[in-house]
């Protein structure tokens, strides 16, 4: 696959150049290259173990790549300049046991030295149905509530680039809908939002662009119409059909390569 990345209009939120990361024998990311624009929602889709979380952790500066690079608003991931621009919500909410909902919010505000954060925090808690559980401890919350709290913590900073790893897992339809509306609102205000998910219905309703990741490689990217073109489907085909066609074609190519004794690409 070509490693060139198309320059996008309106500024680049996050750019990935031939990013490679291995855990022992296993390649979690392999020459991954793409760019996400500001002011748009980009969805990262792929099967479990495709490398989505690794990509997010590397973008948030929590993992070092073996080769290649990731830049956040033009700064190398992990540098103070990049960290200032990015906010990350991991797949598993990393909450502190014994610290209440409100104290988690206060902790984020204090940690990042936020100013005038209280009205926004109150609004976010209200929006995600946590206003009535301010004094509850994490173990007293349901899985969905914990995820919503992690979301509030990530959104409170108001960073330019937002990385949300599986944000819809465990959310009920009402909260999913509210999150979609909020994400769209943030993007329309100029933020670049990258959402990793395998719930294709949410992607179709939310994303401006889609990146398909499999085996640590980017196998397709673009708008839904462009994905359909790459998959050889009519422009009106839905995302699920495009995804299945693209991944199936990739598998067939892999089997063919293995049969002819080619490389692992």
């Amino acid at each position, binding site marked *: 696959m070509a490693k060139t990345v198309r320059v996008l209009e309106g500024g680049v939120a996050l750019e990935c150049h031939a990013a490679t990361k291995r*855990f022992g024998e*296993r390649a*979690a990311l392999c020459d991954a290259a793409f760019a996400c624009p500001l002011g748009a929602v980009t969805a990262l889709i792929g099967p479990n*173990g495709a*490398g989505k*979380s*690794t990509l997010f*952790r590397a973008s*948030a*500066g*929590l*993992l*070092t790549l073996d080769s290649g690079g990731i830049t956040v608003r033009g700064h190398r991931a*992990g*540098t*103070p300049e990049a*960290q*200032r621009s*990015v*906010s*990350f919500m*991991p797949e*598993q*909410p*990393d*909450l*502190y*046991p*014994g*610290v*209440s*909902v*409100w*104290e988690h919010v*206060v*902790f*984020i*505000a*204090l*940690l*990042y*030295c936020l100013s005038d954060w209280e009205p926004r925090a109150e609004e976010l808690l209200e929006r995600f149905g946590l206003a009535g559980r*301010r*004094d*509850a*401890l*994490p*173990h*007293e919350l349901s899985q969905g509530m*914990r995820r919503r709290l992690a979301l509030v*913590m990530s959104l409170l900073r108001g960073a330019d680039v937002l990385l949300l790893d599986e944000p819809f897992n465990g959310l009920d339809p009402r909260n999913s809908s509210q999150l979609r509306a909020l994400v769209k609102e943030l993007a329309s205000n100029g933020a670049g939002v990258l959402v990793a998910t395998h719930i294709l219905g949410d992607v179709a309703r939310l994303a401006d662009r889609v990146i398909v990741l499999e085996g640590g490689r980017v196998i397709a990217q673009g708008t839904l119409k462009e994905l359909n073109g790459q998959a050889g489907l009519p422009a009106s085909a839905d995302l699920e059909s495009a995804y299945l066609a693209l991944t199936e074609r990739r598998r067939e190519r892999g089997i063919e390569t293995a049969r002819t004794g080619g490389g692992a690409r």
Partner: protein
Amino acid sequence: MTTSAAYAMGYLAAHRWRRRLLMTREKPGVLLAVVAGMAASVALQFWLLRRASTASFPPTAVDLVAQLAPLLLPAIALSATFRSPLRLDVADASWLLTAPGGPRVLLARHLFGFPLLQAALGGLGGVLSRSLMSLPAAPAWKVAVVVGGAALIVRVLGMLAHLSALRAPLLTRILALSWAAALAIVAVAGEQAARLTGEGVARRWVVAIIDSEVVEAGWILVPFFAIALLAVVVLCVARGYIEPADDRARQNAELQVSTRRDTTGLETGASWFRSGLRSWSGRAFLTGERALLFRGLAQQRRMQRMFGLELAVELLVMIVLLALAPEMAWLPLAFVLLTIVVTSSFSGIAVELDHHHVWMAPLRPLIALLCAIAVPAATVAASAEVLWFTLLLGGSLGGGTWLVGAVLIPCLGVVIFLAGALGIAIGGRGVLRIPLSVAFGAGGIAPVLFLVFVPTAPAVAAVAVALAGFATTAARVVRRRLWSSTRIDLGGV
């Protein structure tokens, strides 16, 4: 049919153990517990053997434990009447318990699995301690049998009590429990009376275990076979543990709730955190790195119950030792320090390894490190100061020594948690961080202990320089390995 169930359970158990072994890379607590248990077993047996060589057993902790241990048995029986001592996985309840022959196989695993493990560890400890004393290793089998037998007693008693709770009427249970309690009290009182004449059962048991003479083997083998026989009787009535159908459905639902795994770790020790407290609001001076102080204090104020209970137990043990064996009164303090040294690679800055915000926020590493370890270090120092003061009141310390120690204890807390951070910075998230933290912790404590016993001006200066050097080096390494662009990976796949 029983064979099929046994095969299925063996297959599951093999995979479970394989998974546990692999998990020690991520969660080294289990390995740590086994190593600590082994070390304690070897140390205890070594100590007993040395006592045996001097042919006298003073009325120390061993006798005390031996006398009080029987009182635990009614407590075990009582708890087993309210809650099943069978620790079933969901898979056990869904498949093995309902398979033909499954209840017997499950019960056998429950009855013999843990005692066998204990026997193996105890036996190995016996061999090691005897090797250290250059004694023949052969009589170490006695230790294995005694340790395994003790574990078997607990299991059998629990299962019998639970069976009585399932099948026997309430009055019968109350009667049986009261008899068991009376028996335990008589046993303790009898032991106390016999000890006065030097013929206590506990003493005879200890001698029988560690003595190389095989003559006393009957003291060990007869009770062991009696318990093993009782275990076989329990196995014969295994089906009695299956509830009637309607109860079973209800209990399965409860079981699923009770065995539901939480992978976030938020449920771990959750009951120790006090619920319902009003949340703290932030203070302007707690911004940036000091937010870690806010987080630590917010968490700590909900753990006062656990903190108080731990301190009360340590204090009680120290007071008892001051009364019975003053030369061993320092043991609780040593235990507190040892525990903190061993667990320092899991607390302090280690808590933040799984919390990404700390690594993404614009923090000054050195101040962040100090703020992260401040609350746990202060907590440990508070416990240690109380115990140190108790030693002074008990007359075990001189005023000068106490004063030097009281000043140094807070430094000790900081040094131990810095050593833990250093262990993580060098050893990463894996199991290697534990021995490294222990080694660095021991290296940090040694000069402080030296100062307690040699409180001279040159020694104070030398130790101050050594501690400052240690703290600076540790902070620099931690900064480079955890906060720079070449740091260890802070997240998994």
